[in-house]
């Protein structure tokens, strides 16, 4: 119980810390949460009423978009990070790029079958 309390205090204290010597404008957390809220809403909306035919391509296309972590991975190879982080960054880059390129190409291949058919008709 005391351990739990100690943990909770530490969490609260560190949460408050950056705000005290804080920046002039809104902290990133709040901006980020706004962005998150709106994007989730958009994500819910854009996917409604999709015909079942497109479920697989949609999934694999959005899967490719989730490779956006490539952007984060690139930062980890920058000067802000020590060598060991850079190595993790390189691993992340390889994984994310496979995800991105593989995802988009596979989706394109699937969709090509729909449009090839459309062309003949």
């Amino acid at each position, binding site marked *: 119980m005391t351990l739990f309390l100690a*943990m909770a205090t530490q*969490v*609260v204290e*560190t*949460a408050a810390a950056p705000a005290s010597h804080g920046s002039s404008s809104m902290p990133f957390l709040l901006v*980020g949460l706004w*962005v*998150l809220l709106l*994007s*989730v809403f958009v*994500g*819910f909306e*854009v*996917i409604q009423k*999709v015909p*079942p*035919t497109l*479920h*697989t*391509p949609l*999934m*694999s*296309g959005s*899967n490719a*978009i*989730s490779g956006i*972590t*490539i*952007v*984060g*991975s*690139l*930062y980890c190879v*920058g*000067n802000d*990070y*020590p*060598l*060991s*982080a*850079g190595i*993790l*960054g*390189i*691993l*992340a*880059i*390889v*994984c994310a*790029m*496979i995800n991105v390129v*593989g*995802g*988009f*190409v*596979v989706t394109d291949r*699937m*969709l090509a079958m*729909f449009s090839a*058919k459309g062309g003949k008709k």
Partner: protein
Amino acid sequence: MLAFIDATHIVELAYMAASLLFILGILKLGKVKTSKQGNLWAAYGMAIAIGATMLLLITSGDWDPREGEWTYQSHVLAVGAMVLGSVIGWWMAIKVPMTSMPEFVAFFNGLGGAASMFVGLAEVPRAAERNQILAAEGADFAIADSLAVIIGAITLTGSLVAYAKLAGKLNKSRIGPLGSQGVNALLGIACIGLAVWGGFFAKTPTELWLSNGLLAFASLLLGVGLTLPIGGADMPVAIALLNSYSGIAGMTTGFILKNNLLIVAGSLVGASGIILTQIMCKAMNRSLSNVLLGGMGETAGASGGAKDEGYTKVKSTSAEELAALLDAATSVIFVPGYGLAVAQAQHKVRELAGLLEKKGCQVRYAIHPVAGRMPGHMNILLAEADVPYEQLYELDRINDDFKNTDVVVVLGANDVCNPAATNDPKSPIAGMPVLTVWDARTVVVVKRSLASGYAGIRNELFQMDNSLMFLADAKKALEDTITELKAL
């Protein structure tokens, strides 16, 4: 004058453009006519995002070679890694046959999770260098970092298990203690504990590495444990959900790196994945928790062939008889399932359908929402074989028509046309919407054996008065039927 000529502002604008392209891309992907363009737009968005990030890192001097530490310049290594990843991804995507598409989507998805996990872990040495706790940069930072590691790792191993299950390389619901709900709960608690230790208390490099390393390890195990119990029939749901996880993992890295683009793209994928998961669940009339706890997984893995027995009055048929039946029919509906995909029989169905159409017979295809191993799996396969889109009918549009149909040919589908779902309230699939194929005059079930489907339950359809069993590989059966039909 323009207030932003600064590189960071240009990059921010480029990120905005990329976000817009992602949103419009997903929107367009959801419509048949524009789907191909949608995928392209999303890919352009990604290219812009990557290009802008590289511009930022180069102009800010972040990618300058560091003294002493790096043997090669870091940006050269980064570009090399990108090229390597692209080549591997491209090569795999080109090579994969259409039938094994679902498992490869799962595999790519896992790598996305891995990337988020690595990005989360990369913060560890940075904190270690300064001898600071991760939360020194804010509690939100520490929490986001732990979440990136946890969700990324779960996505990675969960997707790999899904890959193995889909590829038929794994059909167990347990590996040692992994897969039981008790062990999962323990792992979950361990993850929370390690996350608190690693984010808020671990200060020395040793502590930081130990806590976060263990966190990654426990999360990797948890990913395996969570996915193992999910039955094969539920894999479409599992993939949709794991896809959503990889988005959420990407979103958390946005909070680590204070990057809005990562948050937008990640939460877009996360949210759309959850909606897709919901659609899948609805199609099977199951709750998400029921799927996740593996209601059917157990029986599927354990019984398998044991349920062959128990069918007493099955009437079997041959290619000759099927050909004669089809020849006399004026309306035929094909019901494709996973067996069709395994046998790669999609072109043969098309050929047979073509022959029947020439004879003036009406040919349609009934597509159950969860037929196959991935939502929309059958639509893709039939599209590959040039089956016209207008001939594909969804469940609610075709179910009333079965009673006016002469012959229904079930091709390697089982659970999606099991009458138990409508008439046996105790059945594990009770209430699941199924194709009411038994209403047709004659049903011919083409199947390799009388074994139960992935749900592991018996199918009364096989011994109904109006049904005939054609025990053969779908492709072989269709080939023979085509030959017989041509000979008539």
